[in-house]
């Protein structure tokens, strides 16, 4: 087939003569990079870019069916899920692509931080990267809003309440965010514009700037302990390194990028096929109160932090912490633009990264279980273990009814079911005497509301008599030693009840 090959060559030349991109592309592709950067550690950036492309493609495909109207969005998603052939799969790929993209961007950032790659002359690359991270999170949040189910609605409500805490301009900012006084049609329209035009456009532009700088400044060399970065000498040293021990980027390093990207894409596809799309959950009707809103995965940690703040700290923390966090990230390359790159010589950096990672993991894990939230349906839906009532007297049984009917179960678990806001009560009788229980029930305290006004004396008696039975077999209930002593030796002429 030499003829075909020749005509192909002719067509290529025709275009090249007019476009003239061969030169710049060859330069970029064949530029030399330090040999040891052709490493599996250096594949996350390209994987993030691949995922961005995937998100753009699947996003456009979803936009063919999705209706960005508050009245129809939820329905159109259900049609995608249930009626459009493989609509569910595209939704799933887009949702899992989003999760993977957030994860890969964070891993990329951690790797860059650990390898000291943000140091001179790559400060601006890092700065742009911080904005890329923010944009990625912005895409995740606006994407959650476009799902427009109850989680989306109330997640946005949380956003409103966070913004509303800004002094003076809070109200105006809320109106600007929502496009009106409430979360409604105007809100979805503007989040659609943000998610589909504004943020992706900026994201793509910044990503190209980021890649441009990576090509122009060269890939960060593998950090060696003792090889310090100095602004006066670094560029010459780097050039020498690439000349003496460099390999062309393609194929030397690029094949690993390609394979990792394919692996990530395959992982997205498998997750999408196995776990399916995210939601949509219940309809976005704010008058439905039977809902337990929860944000998407990337924001779970914030959700957890917000529940652990003491009331007095809420506003200052919510307003100041994000600014400090972003400022901290932006400051990293300017605070430490020279010096050691190797993690062997940067204990503070390694420790900081480790604490952030552990903290993030702990908060995310907590937010998956939400131990701070009452279980709204526990009082009417969670049964008591049969053996807890086997020996029960009528009064104890009635106490168990009160335990359920007065929503105690919403915060206190028994037999592993129920809320976790308060302590589990399976063995409460070993910890508290009946009088202590009575006192606690009536006056509340700590995080427990006072039930004094809401329970009648017979109800309290029945409840306490039920709680008294909650102790493991063979472990005696708690008792008041002083009262027992007083009863066995009554003081002459005195009464021992106060």
């Amino acid at each position, binding site marked *: 087939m030499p003829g075909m090959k020749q005509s192909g060559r002719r067509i290529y030349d025709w275009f090249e003569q007019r476009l003239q991109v061969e030169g710049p592309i060859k330069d970029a592709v064949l530029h030399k990079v330090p040999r040891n950067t052709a490493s599996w550690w250096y594949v996350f950036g390209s994987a993030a870019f691949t995922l961005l492309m995937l998100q753009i493609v699947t996003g456009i495909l979803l936009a063919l069916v999705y209706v960005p109207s508050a009245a129809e969005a939820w329905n159109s998603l259900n049609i995608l899920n249930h009626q459009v052939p493989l609509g569910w799969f595209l939704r799933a790929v887009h949702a899992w692509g989003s999760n993977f993209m957030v994860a890969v961007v964070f891993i990329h950032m951690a790797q860059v931080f650990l390898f000291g790659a943000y140091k001179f002359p790559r400060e601006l690359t890092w700065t742009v990267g911080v904005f890329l991270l923010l944009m990625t999170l912005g895409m995740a949040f606006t994407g959650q809003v476009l799902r427009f189910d109850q989680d989306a609605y109330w997640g946005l409500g949380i956003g409103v309440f966070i913004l509303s805490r800004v002094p003076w301009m809070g109200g105006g900012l809320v109106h600007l965010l929502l496009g009106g006084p409430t979360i409604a049609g105007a809100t979805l329209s503007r989040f659609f514009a943000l998610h589909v035009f504004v943020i992706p456009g900026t994201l793509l532009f910044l990503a190209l700037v980021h890649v441009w700088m990576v090509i122009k400044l060269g890939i960060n060399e593998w950090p060696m302990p003792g090889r310090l970065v100095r602004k006066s000498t670094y560029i010459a040293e780097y050039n020498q390194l690439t000349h003496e021990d460099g390999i062309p980027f393609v194929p030397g390093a690029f094949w690993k990028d390609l394979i990792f990207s394919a692996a990530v894409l395959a992982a997205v596809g498998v997750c999408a096929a196995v776990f399916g799309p995210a939601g949509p959950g219940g309809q976005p009707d704010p008058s439905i109160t039977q809902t337990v809103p929860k944000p998407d995965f990337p924001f779970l940690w914030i959700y957890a932090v917000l529940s652990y703040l003491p009331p007095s700290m809420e506003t200052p923390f919510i307003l100041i912490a994000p600014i400090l966090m972003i400022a901290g990230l932006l400051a990293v390359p300017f605070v430490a633009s020279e010096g050691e790159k190797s993690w062997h010589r940067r204990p503070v950096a390694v420790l900081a990264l480790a604490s952030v990672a552990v903290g993030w993991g702990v908060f995310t894990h907590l937010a998956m279980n939400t131990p701070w939230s009452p279980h709204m349906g526990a009082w009417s839906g*969670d049964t008591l273990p049969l053996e807890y009532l086997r020996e029960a007297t009528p009064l104890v049984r009635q106490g168990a009814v009160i335990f359920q009917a007065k929503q105690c179960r919403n915060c206190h678990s028994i037999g592993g079911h129920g809320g976790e806001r308060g302590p589990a009560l399976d063995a409460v009788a070993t910890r508290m005497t009946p009088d202590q229980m009575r006192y606690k029930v009536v006056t509340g305290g700590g995080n427990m509301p006072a039930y004094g006004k809401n329970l009648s004396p*017979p109800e309290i008696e029945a409840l306490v008599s039920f709680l008294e039975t909650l102790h493991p077999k063979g472990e005696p209930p708690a008792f008041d030693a002083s009262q027992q002593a007083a009863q066995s030796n009554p003081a002459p002429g005195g009464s021992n009840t106060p």
Partner: protein
Amino acid sequence: MRRGALAFVLPLVLALAGCGRLPGARAEAEPPARPEDVLDFHTLYSTNCQACHGANGHGGPAMELGNPEYQALVDDATLRKWISGGMPGTEMPAFAQSAGGMLTDAQVNAIIAGMRKEWAKSNVFAGAAPPPYAQDQAGDVKRGQQTYQARCASCHEKPSRQQVTSLAYLSLVSDQALRTIIVTGRPDIGQPDWRLEPTPIPGRPPAVYAYLVGPPLSAQDVTDIVTYLGSLRNPAAVSAAPTPIPPRR
């Protein structure tokens, strides 16, 4: 190399082409229903009722709804009244939206129909006529006390066991609730019905109640016992509980 890639990609393509079969597919599922549109009995029962009435109607702290005798004794209108508006004098709350609850009338009806379907049995009384659900005659306290001593006390007066004369207990149950449990019993906890025939308790030897056998309680007996227990009811007296003392810290 190319053949290897094909071997990798082809199954994936085939799997997708055969859509709907993948575990993540949502093709069969329904979109989520509004909470007021849920009419499935099992969903409604397990989210609204089973915490007190027990999983599958048995073994909960409150009335055993899964007892076929209970289902035979109570009519739909009465069930609807208690579920919708709550049962006065007990902890049974109102579930109908019209009374501040969360359920629509259609959902209340679905629960009633579901209970009938699951738990009602034909001919549970085997020809015997139980005392009516609602009290239909005047009761006598004195007579009630005698009947109670003769027919109930042997179990219910045992120290620290089954004390139905406890003031706190009586303040929390209505006469109707007492009457219902005397008539229908609670097989799940060994409480016999009005016939006072021994009922085996799950997990306990049945011999305990062997001496109970005797003539069934008459409608008048049941009314008298309930009247007697009702006369003991005095919620104001229960506040005599010891003054709470603060826990040590």
